[in-house]
């Protein structure tokens, strides 16, 4: 059992990891084909796994409906939504357009799915306002720096802000708010971002080595 649950998966992980790593240094067509094959396999596995996901979705929502848990009515919409997309997809043979006309699937996709996705995305704008409000309540020195930087950036990027700045400090002729805003974006923001990126890159390499050499095994459970 240990052989199947532990040793064979670790050996597969080690061999595939090393082959994928070496394909970066070996520019032959066989190494390129190997990477392509791996990507295809990933897609095939993902296709099968999607069925598992679908069963999980139906199972969890059926349970909610049968047990009448709080908000079980929402679970009905999962099945309604599923049927509303799958039935027209079967009828229209998976096509969204026939000639210049929308099929039932195309109509559902364009006027239901896209509209709902767009609505969720637009909600982001409101959340940004509420999160900005929370961030700008100055409770510490760091929050003060954040507020100052955000204020300068807003003045620099919004035409009204530039007009206010010009009205207040334009007579000095020494400070251009657009340049200050750009400097904030180009220097301190990029420096911080790159520091985080370097840490992430190193962490990513070490995690990859841990997985390839079988030191990190939590992702496959212990026996």
């Amino acid at each position, binding site marked *: 059992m240990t052989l199947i649950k532990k040793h064979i998966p670790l050996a597969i992980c080690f061999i595939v990891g090393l082959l994928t790593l070496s394909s970066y240094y070996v*520019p032959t067509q066989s190494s390129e084909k190997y990477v392509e094959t791996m990507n295809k396999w990933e897609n095939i596995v993902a296709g099968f796994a999607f069925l598992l996901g679908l069963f999980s979705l139906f199972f969890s929502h059926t349970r909610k409906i049968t047990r009448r848990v709080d908000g079980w009515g929402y679970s009905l919409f999962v099945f309604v939504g599923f049927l509303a997309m799958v039935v027209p997809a079967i009828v229209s043979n998976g096509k969204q357009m026939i000639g210049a006309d929308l099929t039932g699937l195309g109509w559902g996709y364009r006027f239901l799915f896209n509209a*709902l996705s767009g609505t969720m995305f637009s909600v982001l704008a409101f959340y940004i306002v*509420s999160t900005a409000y929370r961030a700008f309540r100055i409770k510490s020195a760091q929050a003060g720096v954040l507020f100052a930087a955000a204020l300068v950036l807003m003045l620099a990027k919004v035409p009204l802000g530039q007009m206010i700045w010009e009205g207040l400090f334009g007579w000095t002729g020494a400070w251009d708010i657009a340049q200050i805003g750009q400097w904030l974006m180009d220097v301190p923001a990029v420096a911080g971002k790159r520091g985080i990126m370097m840490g*992430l890159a190193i962490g990513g390499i070490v995690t990859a080595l841990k997985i390839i050499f079988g*030191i990190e095994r939590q992702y496959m459970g212990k026996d």
Partner: protein
Amino acid sequence: MLNIRIIPVVFAVLFAASAVSAATPASPKNVPVKPDLSGFEAKDMPYDKGEAVLLSWPAGPADVPGAVWQVYAASGKDWVKADEFPADKKLAADIELPFWAWDRHAKLHVVQLDMPGLFNDFKIGTEYRFKVKYVNGKETAESPELPAAPKPNLFNLARLNNLLLLIVTTIVFFWTVSHAKRKGGLFIRRIAGLDAIDEAVGRATEMGRPIFYSTGIGSMSAVPTIASTSILSEVAKKVAAHDTQLKVPHFDPIVMTVSKEIVKQAYAESNRSDSYRDDINFFVSQDQFSFAASVDGMIHREKPAACFFIGHFMAESLLLAEVGATTGAIQIAGTEQESQLPFFFTSCDYTLIGEELYAAGAYLSKEPMLQSTLKVQDFGKAFVMLSIVAGSALLLAGTWFKMDTLVTVVKHLFKAY
């Protein structure tokens, strides 16, 4: 009187000088120079997968403004014009290869031909013929025809710097692991976001509310998702020990399948296999905003005591974290997407920054072998810091003292090819 006598002499001298001048041969500038094509070479492009050919020939005084080079290739009888460019362009210095793989100072014209773009029936290993033609007005010159067959290379020498860095990292990695096996007892600085997990689980237990854990929208092959599943394992152990409710909505069915195994194992390790339910992990949707809408709805209705958002997140980061914040849940987040970190900073109580995400599994598990690898991360950071300081100093010195070679060497050493 003297002046009157001198005037004829001056005229005579000037006349003689003009005659001499007229007799002088024309300057070399006015004579068209024939290019030297004896050094023309056609060979396989080094360090590629076998789809390019490299042509080279000496650059020289014939490369004057107005002159052009034409490059021809043939697989059968017919010649195909592969390239045409001004005579002073496409030199050895223009090839994007590092100094250890390519002589940038050679006074050569170099043309890299992409063969599949030229011949639809291109096959690796097939021999093709090449020639170049010099055209400067009516003056032309043609090189001899040379054969060359593109072939794949076994090693991309341009990536030698990358390989050496990898080898050094791997050596340090094994050294620290073996060191941990022998000695152990590594000091690890506290990570507030991870220490708060106990607090979050305790709070959920006291309030009798669930804990939500999201691994994000990354696939199982993404390193942040793997790091997230390691943290999920430790969170699940604590949840099982406290007999609290855990909910793990998923974007990717493969991640869901792996997470099921991990959570099941965590419950078993906490001797609470009886409390494990198969619906702890459940699939929601593979569409980004459908996933966010569904999880937002659940968080809003169930009002969890704690939310974990650890893994790969994009625009849904704020949608999830902001809804969690409005419900009053204690929130711990971490992602490798630096563009999403500001949203987590402002909406969550604790955020794992940068490499803390990858260190979390080792930090929580307290296994010496895993913890030792944190030292590799520290060595890596020290190396990067030293490289930045040394590289900047060398570049400054090279620029200041006009040492072009030094600047080129430093730039090439730190470049990814």
